């Protein structure tokens, strides 16, 4: 356990050579999947996820157990609701981690992430514009190296932008940690930005998702024991990291927009024509 912290205090460099406030390389693409309404591919370091959005569309026939363990993470009450239902489906590929570990769809951690994502997006997407409909978001985790939830949120945001679903602003997420081992209350501990898998295992950390470039926190998930005094520093670094991520995602979207204008591809405007604005 002390491996990370001890080397850190000497050179102020982390295991992968980053400084405390450095993000890993983020590479993102949108419109990766021709058949979907919106899609994205996102890499945060070695964490790689793909997202495919279908909808808003008519809710499909309910398959057995879709509301419970199958689909999972639905927000809003099916076709009856006056808001669109956001259904999130996460598939963690067996080959995504170093040791192959298969998680069934009933895995509670995955279900919790599905529910977190659905609630996060439902708060940001203008679901009231699409009554009696459903927005399907399916995410595939191809490789994981820490900050999984953050990567999933960022990828889902990009794909929703690509799908042309009206939303308040970008929801961006990143992780933050602290170099103090948990429970220890040393004052000299530095907060860290964007944890990789090894750091996530050894150090206390949290995932934070914010709305646009405001300080408003949409989701905050902390799963490790940490002194309450560490929280403020971690949250500040995390929120700041989210703003950096937002800049990067914004550039990705703008670059794609420019490319489409140059190519003369006229956006089909999925959902824009038949949407009634109020």
């Amino acid at each position, binding site marked *: 356990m002390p491996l990370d912290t001890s080397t850190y205090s000497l050179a102020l460099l982390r295991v992968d050579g980053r400084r405390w406030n450095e993000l890993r390389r983020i590479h993102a693409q949108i419109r990766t*999947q*021709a*058949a*979907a309404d919106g899609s994205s591919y996102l890499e945060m370091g*070695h964490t*790689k996820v*793909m997202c*495919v959005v*279908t909808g808003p569309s008519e809710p*499909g*026939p309910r*398959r*057995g*157990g879709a509301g419970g*363990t*199958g*689909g999972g993470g639905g927000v809003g009450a099916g076709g009856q609701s006056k808001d669109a239902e956001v259904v999130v*489906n996460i*598939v963690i*590929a*067996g*080959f*995504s*981690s*170093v040791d*192959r570990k*298969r998680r*069934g*769809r009933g895995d509670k951690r995955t279900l919790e992430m599905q529910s977190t994502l659905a609630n996060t997006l439902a708060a940001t997407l203008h679901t009231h514009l699409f009554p009696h409909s459903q927005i*399907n978001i*399916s995410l*595939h985790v*191809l*490789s994981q190296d820490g900050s999984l939830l953050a990567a999933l949120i960022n990828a889902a945001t990009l794909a929703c932008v690509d799908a042309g679903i009206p939303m308040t602003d970008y929801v961006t997420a990143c992780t933050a940690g602290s170099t103090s081992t948990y429970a220890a209350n040393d004052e000299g501990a530095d907060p860290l930005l964007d944890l990789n898998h090894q750091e996530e295992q050894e150090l206390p950390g949290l995932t934070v998702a914010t709305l646009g470039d405001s300080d408003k926190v949409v989701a905050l998930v902390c799963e490790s024991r940490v002194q309450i005094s560490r929280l403020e520093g971690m949250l500040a670094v995390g929120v700041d990291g989210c703003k950096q991520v937002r800049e990067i995602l914004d550039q990705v979207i703008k670059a794609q927009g420019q490319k489409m204008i140059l190519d003369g591809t006229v956006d089909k405007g999925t959902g824009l024509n038949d949407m009634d604005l109020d």
Partner: protein
Amino acid sequence: MTSSQQVLLSPAELSYLHSSLSLTPPIRPDGRSPTQYRPLSAETGILPGTNGSARICFADGTEAIVGVKAEVEKTKRKWDDDAVYTENSHNDDEEQQQDGRGEASNGNGNSDWVELTVEIPGYRDDDPSTVFLAQMLSEALLADGGFIKKLRINRRFHWKLYLDILLISPPLSYPLPLLSLTTHLALLATRLPRLKSEGDEDPFFDDDWAAAPYLYSRNPTTKRIAERPPVTLLVMAVGGNIIFDPSKEELAVADVALAVSIGDATTSQRSQGEDDRMDVDSGNSGGRNLKLLSIRTVDPPSRLTPPGVANAANSAYGHAQVVNTGANQKMPEARQTESEAVEGVWKPPRGGAKAIVMGALVQKVLVRGGVADEVLDALEGVDTS
């Protein structure tokens, strides 16, 4: 089990589709010729964390990713099995495969050395259609007897291969051909660390990934792959026509649909006459020596489509006859009218397919220089190194 989700086509549209596909030559909605595959783009080695990986996008936008991971596993064995062992353990019958008798001691493999899972977004992993897909794909692999043997390390250890097949896009068409081709490429790109230990000692491996040999070995000089994993082709018959790689709409009017798995027997030295192997010697035009590994009928959704009603029998056109299709089934005279083919009225196929149609379908797949050859050639063009 339906082979894809419900198609929302009216009986009139189905009837139109059926008759245009029955023409000679058939007219397909997307303008392909009957033997033409959808264009595809493919890449391999996309995931550095796996032993082998591949991604294929079909032109209709469907996309799949396959990752292969290998682990060393201790071989379970039964000593008393050597004598009882017979050569026909690799037949098509899954029950016989599953009983997992210790073929390991004979230098062959065991079917549970390979674990194959299919993930389709929106479907549970224990959904019958997902399980059926995984079953078809793994049975093709296992039927190719040479494949399992490659996983043997020594008498005590073997590689356990995990194939995770992900469909990324929504399932727009029946994903079997896509998943099969992607699995094929991923297996071609699969490399296992080079063994440094000898004999039956605990295996240890070379750390140098660059030295890792491919699971499907290449000829050192020509770089050609000597042996290839199986591919599964989806083929269907409408009227007298045989159509390859049908789309969802085409499948909705199929008389019969087959999933045919074939292997490349060109360099196979081990055609020990296992029951299901059938070398096709018809024609001597260049091309591969294909062998048939397995056949499965796929239940086409056409059987679930509601039949159309001819104008002559439709009360909306002033005829007082009973036209409730639900009630029709019970009345013999109504069934009489239904079974007569009326031009322009959709009639879902009933009953099984004729043996001669089945035979023709299989022949068409195995013909030298045919579609199977084309597909294999195209896959060979993909850089898997």
